[in-house]
C-alpha cells in the first residue's frame, strides 16, 4: 500500500459537475474519510471521451495533454479520474506520448502555441477505484465503517474501460505485440484484467455481499453509442440488468458516470416497455461507501439517482 501517493490531482470530468453531481460529492466524502487528499484540477477541459478520437487524432491528444500540463503546473505526477472515459482518454494519451517521441515533440510545440506550459514529464493516470484500493484498502474501509451494509446484495459493475485495453490501462502481464521493448509493462497497482475485484473488496469490507455477476461485470453498456445507437445499447443494458436481477442483486454499484447514466436511462425505457427483471436500481460505489461511513442519504445525494435506490436501502435499514 502507498504506491500512488496520498495527495493527487483530481480530474472530475464534465459529467461530475452536472448530472453526475452525486458521484463527485460522494467521492470527496469517501476520500476525506479515508484520509486522502484530492487536489481539484483548476480550469480543466473535456477529455474528448470516446467520441472526439474518431474525428481527430491529434486534437484529442492535445485535449488530454493540456490537462496533463495543468496537473504538472499544480505539482503532481499522478492524476486520478473517477470516470472510465476520462481515465481511458488520459491513459491513451500517456501511451501515445510515451511510445512515440515525434508525437511527444509535436504535442509540446502545439501546447506552447496554445499558451499552455509544455510537458516536462508525462503524469500517470489512475482510476479512482485503484487509488482507493491501494492508498486506503479494504482494511481502512472496515475501520471507518459505522453502519455496515449488512444484507445488501450488490452487483459490482465495472464497465469496459476500467481494465481495458491493457495497452492503456496496463493491466495485463503477458501482453502481445511484435516489439518486446515497446510493450507497456504491467502496472503494479493494476486490477485483474478479466476479473476485476477492487470494488467487490471495498464494498465487502463495508459489509455488503457481492453477487455472482460474471461476465456482465465488464460487459459494455452501449457507452459512446448510448444515444446514437439505441437498439444495441438497449439490448446490452437489458442483459446487464437481467443478469443482476436474476442473480439476486438488490442494487448495481457503478464506478463511471457514463455507465451509470446509460443504465438508468435504459432501465427506465425497458421498464416502460414492460421487459421483465430489469428493475434493479443503480448507485455509485462511493455513495454506498458514504452510507456505510455513517453519512445520510441526503449527504451522498441519493435523490439524484434517477433509478431511485432509496426504497431498497430503506428496506434494509441503510438509509
Amino acid at each position, binding site marked *: 500500500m502507498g504506491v500512488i501517493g496520498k495527495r493527487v490531482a483530481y480530474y472530475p470530468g*464534465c*459529467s461530475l*459537475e*452536472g*448530472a453526475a*453531481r452525486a458521484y463527485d460529492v460522494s467521492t470527496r466524502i469517501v476520500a476525506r474519510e479515508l484520509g486522502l487528499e484530492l487536489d481539484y484540477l483548476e*480550469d480543466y*477541459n*473535456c477529455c474528448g*471521451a*470516446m*467520441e*472526439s*478520437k*474518431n*474525428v*481527430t*487524432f*491529434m*486534437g484529442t491528444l*492535445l*485535449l488530454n495533454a493540456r490537462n496533463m500540463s495543468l496537473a504538472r503546473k499544480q505539482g503532481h505526477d499522478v492524476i486520478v479520474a473517477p470516470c472510465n472515459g476520462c481515465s481511458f482518454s488520459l491513459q491513451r494519451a500517456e501511451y*501515445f506520448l510515451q511510445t*512515440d517521441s515525434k508525437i511527444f515533440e509535436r504535442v509540446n510545440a*502545439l501546447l506552447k*502555441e*496554445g*499558451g499552455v506550459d509544455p510537458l516536462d514529464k508525462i503524469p500517470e493516470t489512475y482510476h479512482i477505484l485503484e487509488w482507493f484500493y491501494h492508498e486506503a484498502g479494504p482494511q481502512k474501509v472496515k475501520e471507518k465503517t459505522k453502519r455496515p451494509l449488512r444484507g445488501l446484495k450488490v452487483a459490482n459493475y465495472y464497465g*469496459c*474501460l476500467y481494465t*481495458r*485495453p491493457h*495497452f492503456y490501462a496496463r493491466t*495485463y502481464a503477458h*501482453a*502481445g*505485440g*511484435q516489439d518486446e521493448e515497446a*510493450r507497456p509493462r504491467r502496472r503494479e497497482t493494476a486490477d485483474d484484467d478479466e476479473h476485476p475485484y477492487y470494488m467487490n473488496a471495498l464494498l465487502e469490507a463495508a459489509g455488503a455481499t457481492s453477487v455472482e455477476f460474471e461476465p456482465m461485470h465488464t*460487459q*459494455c453498456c*452501449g*457507452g*459512446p*453509442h448510448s*444515444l*446514437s*445507437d439505441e*437498439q*444495441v*445499447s438497449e*439490448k*446490452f443494458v437489458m442483459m446487464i440488468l437481467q443478469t443482476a436481477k436474476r442473480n439476486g442483486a438488490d442494487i448495481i454499484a457503478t464506478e463511471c458516470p457514463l455507465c451509470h*447514466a446509460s443504465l438508468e*436511462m435504459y432501465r*427506465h*425505457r425497458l421498464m416502460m416497455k414492460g421487459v421483465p427483471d430489469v428493475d434493479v436500481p443503480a448507485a455509485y460505489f462511493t455513495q454506498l461507501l458514504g452510507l456505510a461511513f455513517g453519512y445520510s442519504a441526503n449527504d451522498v*445525494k441519493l*435523490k439524484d439517482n434517477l433509478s*431511485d435506490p432509496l426504497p431498497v436501502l430503506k428496506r434494509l435499514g441503510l438509509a
Partner: protein
Amino acid sequence: MAIHERSLVEPERIVRKERLVIDGVDVSGDWNLIILPRVINDYDLDFAKEIINSPDGKTITQCYQCSYCTASCPVHNYWDERYNPRHFIHLARLGLIDELQKRADVMWRCVSCHKCTHRCPKGVLVEEVLKVILRTMAKKGLIDEYPSKKFDKFFTESVLEYGRIEDGELLFGWIEKQGYNVVKDPILKKPIPFLGETPEWLKQLVMKPIKSMNVSFLVLNAKHMLFHPRTKNWNKFKQVLRKVMQEEGALT
C-alpha cells in the same frame, strides 16, 4: 496467400424465373447465383497505405487473422453476426472497397468496449484500427453518413466551442438532430424541456427530480443548460485545435 473472402452471390443480380422453358427443358428458378469471377483484380492498395501511415492505425500490419477480436466482440455475439472485426481488417488490407461498402450498415456499430484490443495476441489496436478504417472511408466519400459519426462530430464541436460538454445540451441537441421539434427560448436559444416534442421516456426522466423535489439538482442543471460551463482562456487553445483538425482534414 490470403483467403479470398468476398461475396460470390450478389442478391441484386439474381434473376428469378417463375416459368422458363427453353427447347422443351424446364429451367425455371433462380439464375445468376454463383457466376461472379473469383479472381480479384480490383485491389486498392492506397487505402491500406493511408491506414498504415496514421499513428493510431499502423498496427493493422501486425494482424494474423486469428479472429480473437471477433470472438470477443459483443456486437458480433449479441447483435449482428455480420459485424466481424477480423474480416474488416482483412478487407481493408486487401483494399476491397466494394466489399467494405456492402457492410457499411453494420461497420459503424462498434461500441468501443475494447475487448478486441485487449485480447489481441499480436498487439493490434483493433478498435482504433476499425475507427481509422471508417474515418478513411468517410474521408474518401466511400460511405454515407452514419449515426455515430454524426454524434461524434456533434460532441467534438461542443468540446471545441466551450472546452467542456454539458449533458443537457448533448441530450436535447441530439434529440433535435433526430428530427424532434424542440422548442427553444428566444434569447439564449436553449431548448426548453417541457415545450415542444420530446420522446415520452425523456419527459418521464426529467419529471423524476421534479417529483422528488430535488431542487438543488434541478437548479444546477438548469444553470448549466442556460449558461454552458466553459474552460477559461480557451480561445487561444481553440485556435490551435482548429488548425490541427484542419491539417487532418477533420473540419468540413
